[in-house]
């Protein structure tokens, strides 16, 4: 054994060298990756942020009211420069349109960021907030929600107002409903829509759009290929309400809702000018 060899049986501080070597390897691997960097995700070495724990007991709130919250915070430097609630706002839209006769339903929903992450309310730090039992400062307070964020819904109206309907249901969604519905309509559907409930087309012309075929001993009326465009045009002549009217329940089968959701975080900055953000709490506005 020469002087360059590593005696793996050598012990340092009583620990075998092989374990030290393995530990070094492990630490290099763990800390070397910038993407998967568990150490970096826990903290920025060299900076110590204040800690924050918070809770919102009731997460459904009526627009215009205040949201109650509870927060505990502490900082190793024992100075707090800033406390505040911030939130961004998601807008959630849901559209459901149904053709009741065969149950075809178009459901669309979307969530999009409507307003950026903004400061909503700040709070003064006070030594009086200190709770020795919890070994933390405690705030029980509220933050506001604008009444302009009130939820809007339009559900199964008994009277059809085309203007209101168009305001709430975009034209492209109406068009999508119609295009998807068309292949699912049969002779009797077309007859009801275009001849029975309304007289959009002359009977002779209407019947000319269909062929009669025999299935076993049963006569079946099927749409002629060349009639497709004409029938689509006739459908578009109908008030949209005709397509969604539920004759059993006597309402129009449209369900639209617009809601807002707040993604709230508690922001704290300590005396080292290090900021920390709490976990996100989601508040649904009614």
């Amino acid at each position, binding site marked *: 054994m020469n002087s360059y060899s590593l005696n793996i049986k050598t012990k340092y501080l009583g620990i075998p060298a092989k374990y030290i070597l393995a530990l070094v390897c*492990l630490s290099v691997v763990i800390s070397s990756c910038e993407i998967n960097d568990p150490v970096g995700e826990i903290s920025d070495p060299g900076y110590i942020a204040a800690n924050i724990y918070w809770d919102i007991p009731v997460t459904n709130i009526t627009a215009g009211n205040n949201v109650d919250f509870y927060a505990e915070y502490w900082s190793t430097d024992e100075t707090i420069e800033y406390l505040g609630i911030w939130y961004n706002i998601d807008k959630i839209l849901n559209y459901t349109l149904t053709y009741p006769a065969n149950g075809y339903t178009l459901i669309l929903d979307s969530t999009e960021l409507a307003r950026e992450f903004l400061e909503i309310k700040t709070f003064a730090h006070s030594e009086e907030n200190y709770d020795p039992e919890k070994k933390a400062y405690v705030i029980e307070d509220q933050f506001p929600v604008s009444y302009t964020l009130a939820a809007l819904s339009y559900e199964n109206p008994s009277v059809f107002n085309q203007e209101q309907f168009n305001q709430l249901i975009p034209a492209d969604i109406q068009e999508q409903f119609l295009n998807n519905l068309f292949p699912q309509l049969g002779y009797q559907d077309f007859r009801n829509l275009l001849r029975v409930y309304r007289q959009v087309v002359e009977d002779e012309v209407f019947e000319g759009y269909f062929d009669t075929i025999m299935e076993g001993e049963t006569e079946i009326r099927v749409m002629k290929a060349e009639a497709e465009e004409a029938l689509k045009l006739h459908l578009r002549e109908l008030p949209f309400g005709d397509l969604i009217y539920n004759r059993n329940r006597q309402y129009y089968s449209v369900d639209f809702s617009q809601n807002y959701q707040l993604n709230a975080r508690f922001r704290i900055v300590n005396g080292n000018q290090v900021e920390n953000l709490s976990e996100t709490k989601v508040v649904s506005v009614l």
Partner: protein
Amino acid sequence: MKKVKILVILSILFYGLGFWSCESEIEPEYFTSSEVDFDYSAPTLHYVIGEPIQFNNLSVTGSSWQWNFGDGTTSNEENPVHSYDEPGTYTVSLTVDGVHEVRKKIMISDIVPVVQYTATDPAIVYNQTQVSFNVLLENPEDKPVAYKWKFPGGTVGEGIDENGNSELESPSVVFGSIGSQMVSLVITIDGKNLTPVNVNVQVNYNQPAKTLYYAVKGGNIMAKKLIYDIEPSLNNPFDLGYRSGKHPLTLRYSGNWLYVFDAGTRFAFVNEPEYLTAGDGEIFVVAHDGSRRESVIENFGGNTFLDFYYGYIDEQEGMIYWADRREGIFRTPTNTRNEKFSLTEYDYFVRNTWLGYYGEGISWGNINGTITKYNGVWWWAKHTTGSGIFKFTESDILGRDKVDGDPVPGAGSVLRNFGIRSFVIDEVNQKVYFADSRYKMVIQSDLDGSGLKVIDNSPFDGEGGDTEALFVTGMAIDGEYVYWAYRGPQPPAGSDPEEYYQANPLHRSGIKRIKLNEEEPVIEYFIQGVEAYGIAVDQTLR
């Protein structure tokens, strides 16, 4: 030495594994450059049109700034202030030095006035409670605002004229009548009308009272307080806000729920095969204050003869009973919700052929009327052929078709000469009030069918024709009066309606009533001018 080599090889594998696992997780991520950034803030939380929004450039470098506010306007200032004219969600972009761009969303709301009111009493009482209205209104540009309030007749308050109009910002009023009071407000800001706001204020009597519910033909379920010593014009109905249904022949009140039995569009005979799929009846419940409506069971697309014609709630048993058109009676627990009716799921509780009356009064296809239970005995009304009220107990139900030798129920039948659409029992005075569709009369009798007295023989609207005349389907008692929903005829063509009604004052549709147990009862209108089917009384003082 060998161990060292193994260790070196293991270390290389370990490193390799580490790098591989790191590389494999690399995915493209797009970050807003921290070099170029902005934020924005408004004076209030509301971000309404006209509100000045402060945009702040937070970029650490740059000497020129191009803002695009997403509404067709731009700015080259570093920290511009901008207000929007229309509500919507806009994408704002900031380009620094013509190269670096960052985009953010901003939502601008319309100005929507919010009307609030506070009252000096926990429940608003007519002629007593001061109700103060207040409007939350964002007016960021401080433009001139005009208020136009409209209060219902009888409302008094400072600054309110005799027609209920007020131009005050925050009027304070006392409502002069009971029921749903619609208050409307139109606000004009600098000549532009905002969306009108309507507020429905529920105004109560100054003491608890019973409530009469009624299902308006082609309209909503309504309610009216049963107050005996009040000027009629002061006691207005409450609109519960729910449609009555197609033919809600029966209403029943139990617990805190109003039960509506809707027989659907087709209530009379329908040819085969159409009747097999023409069903569209439903039983639904409405909370006493109109706060909720829930479906109990429906028959959409089913046999129309199996729709829900008449009903009864047995509170002790916790069961809903209903009669179909002509065959029998079904039942389901009162907590049933959102069920679909089918004969495979629901068996008859009793049917025509399961009683000893079959062939002895009841025959095939006898059409049903009101069902009720009194002192543990069922009372089952029939009209058209095989008419009358047939009484039985559960022990009389054979559960199979009657055969020769099966006895007729001991409770017996009454009023066999009358086609009975509906009836109600006056327990205190031991009377029956019934609506007879054969002679089109409302009649009073003793419980045994004797002592007949015609109460009302006004002509009816003719719905159902001669064979299945609907006539009066809703009757109720509140302890003071018996009520019935009367739908009168249209005035003859060419006649002046007012002259006709003056000459025939009892031909107006409405909820009629007479005092119980009066020797010479006088018909009066509790509600005039309304066409209704089912009615029910909530005996609870609320």
